[in-house]
């Protein structure tokens, strides 16, 4: 059809075309354009989380510390499980660190869309920003409990060796797993509201199949690889290896499986999210 507008005014301003099924073109551009929103939403989550509780940020310290005490008591002292030659408390804490991060990041991301329903029905921006930014508040907690771990290691008189440089890689793996799974479940949550009740169950079940309170060597050898389908198993192994001077040896094929599952989660999660994203405002 003929161009009804004068070129002089039309060229000065950016043109946006909205067409059924054609939003793809600007999507990744828009994510870049809205990058500050990502930052602001994360900042909001952090502010709000700690404004609402009276003891604020102390929670981030208290929670893993208490869990560690219980796990150390139950698995180390009562069940007397082997500790791979490191203090049991450290074994537990190095497992708790990534687990707690994953659990809270995943939960936050999974519920993020429903909690921001108003924003979704009233303003446009790339929706992927919501669940991904929800993960950031948990990163802060991870850093805080990381500091706690170093304090604990000093108490036990251990220092990490060169392997610690690999730590960011494993943290990144946990981050990717949380984002992948979180984004996926967040999209499902919009359509099927009872996912809201499934999420805590998934997290609880996840804790039982992850080697948080014990060493991954305790998995029976013939089944061991199967446990690494849970990406956090690989991450926990990695954290222990990087922080505890390689004491629990790295199980390479397991790590590979966990890594592959993580990549798959991210791909499927983002794909499913993108596919259903257009309908969010209509069904939420």
């Amino acid at each position: 059809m003929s161009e009804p507008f004068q070129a002089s005014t039309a060229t000065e301003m950016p043109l946006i075309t909205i067409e059924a099924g054609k939003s793809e073109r600007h999507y990744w551009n828009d994510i870049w354009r809205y990058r500050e929103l990502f930052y602001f939403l994360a900042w909001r989550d952090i502010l709000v989380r700690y404004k609402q509780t009276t003891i604020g940020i102390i929670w981030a310290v208290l929670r893993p510390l208490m869990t560690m005490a219980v796990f150390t008591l139950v698995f180390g002292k009562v069940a007397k499980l082997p500790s791979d030659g490191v203090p049991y408390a450290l074994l537990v804490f190095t497992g708790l660190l990534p687990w707690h991060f994953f659990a809270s990041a995943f939960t936050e991301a999974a519920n993020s869309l429903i909690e921001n329903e108003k924003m979704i029905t009233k303003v446009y921006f790339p929706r992927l920003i919501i669940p991904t930014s929800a993960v950031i508040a948990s990163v802060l907690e991870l850093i805080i409990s990381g500091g706690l771990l170093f304090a604990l290691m000093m108490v036990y008189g251990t220092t990490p060796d060169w392997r610690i440089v690999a730590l960011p890689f494993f943290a990144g793996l946990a981050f990717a797993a949380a984002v992948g799974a979180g984004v996926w479940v967040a999209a499902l949550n919009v359509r099927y509201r009872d996912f809201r009740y499934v999420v805590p169950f998934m997290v609880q079940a996840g804790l039982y199949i992850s080697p948080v309170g014990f060493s991954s060597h305790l998995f029976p050898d013939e089944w061991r690889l199967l446990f690494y389908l849970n990406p956090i198993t690989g991450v926990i192994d990695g954290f222990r290896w990087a922080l505890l001077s390689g004491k629990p040896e790295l199980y390479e094929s397991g790590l590979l499986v966990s890594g592959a599952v993580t990549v798959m989660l991210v791909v499927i999660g983002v794909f499913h999210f993108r596919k259903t994203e257009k309908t969010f405002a209509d069904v939420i």
Partner: protein
Amino acid sequence: MIHFENVSKKYVIDHRPRQKYLSLRDVVAESGRRLVQAFRAGVPQSQSKPEDFWALRDINLEVKLGDRLGIVGRNGAGKSTLLKTLSRITEPSTGRIRIWGRVASLLEVGTGFHPELTGRENIYLNGAIQGMVRAEIEKKFDEIVAFAEVERFLDTPVKRYSSGMYVRLAFAVAAHLDPEILVIDEVLAVGDIQFQKKCLAKMENVAAEGRTIILVSHNMATILSLANRCVLLAAGRIVTDGKPMEVVSEYQNTYQDESFGQTDLTKVERYGTGDARFVSVHLCARGRGGTRLPFPETGSDLEFEITLEAREQINSATVALIVYDELGNRLIDANTLLKGQSVSLLAKERRTVRFLLKNVRLKRDLYTVGLWLGMLNMADIDGIRYATTFKMEAVREDILYAAPFPGVYACEFSCQVLEEV
């Protein structure tokens, strides 16, 4: 500049009894039921099938730079859907919209505001949600604060703000986006007249700078004072497109039952025990002989229909309707007590009270209406300071003199220049 080409939006409506949300449980149960039915009956039973609902149908619309387009229509006519497709919140099912320039939409007051965060924090957050970058927000920050008049409360959580302050802040952020296109949905219904005027002035400024405004409102006064073009939607289609005055009168003639004054009161700020509450107020202007007027004008009758609903039983209460001017002066206090009447309601009962203000000779201006239900000097059951707003238009002879004469009341008068005695 905006160009809608054959834009339609379809929703699928499910007529089966259902909750608001789909749940996994229902999906599983439903598939199970179908399976059983298929076995049992052999043929699938004819249930009420999901039905297509066209919220928008073949919309073709061209909005030029600097246009101030008002959109009117009844509830469900597609006004909000139109704004939502334009703001990219939801995607059209068919057709294409081309937009030149940045769109800022204010579809709801304070979207993304977080009650726990302070005014300052919310300005940044809200700005970012609307697509501003931090440098932009910082540049505009003082202007936004000054416009919203919240300097003293910048570091107070917005949950402690009055609804007026809340609206002011929200509007201020959106108005300072400097978008090429500003999309507004019925947000000015809240707040005092001075602020409403300020917003209107700001929008007029925005329009004067050559930006485009698209406005949805049930309040014809707002449409008339702001728009220079108006579109009437019905059942998802554009029925009329033309001058605001013409379109507004057509709208009001077509939909007699739903006039410019219908205001939902279930979500406004109020005080009182709440044993009974105002549900809605409906305003209509009548001229001589009771003919319906498109808008209130000096000397017309104003008919208010106020609907109340009781939660608890109430006995012999008074209903009052108060008209305020811009400064908050009470100009009119019409109440049932003065006419020796009262309202009694059983629990859950709903009733309508009608006030007819005769020959209202207020001058051309904006006025607000407050409502009160209670026992005089004893109890406030429900009180609403800003229930609705209306705009008086001047009658023809007043317009003859372009300069308005100050004053609120245009009393009928005659004058004689007497001979010297």
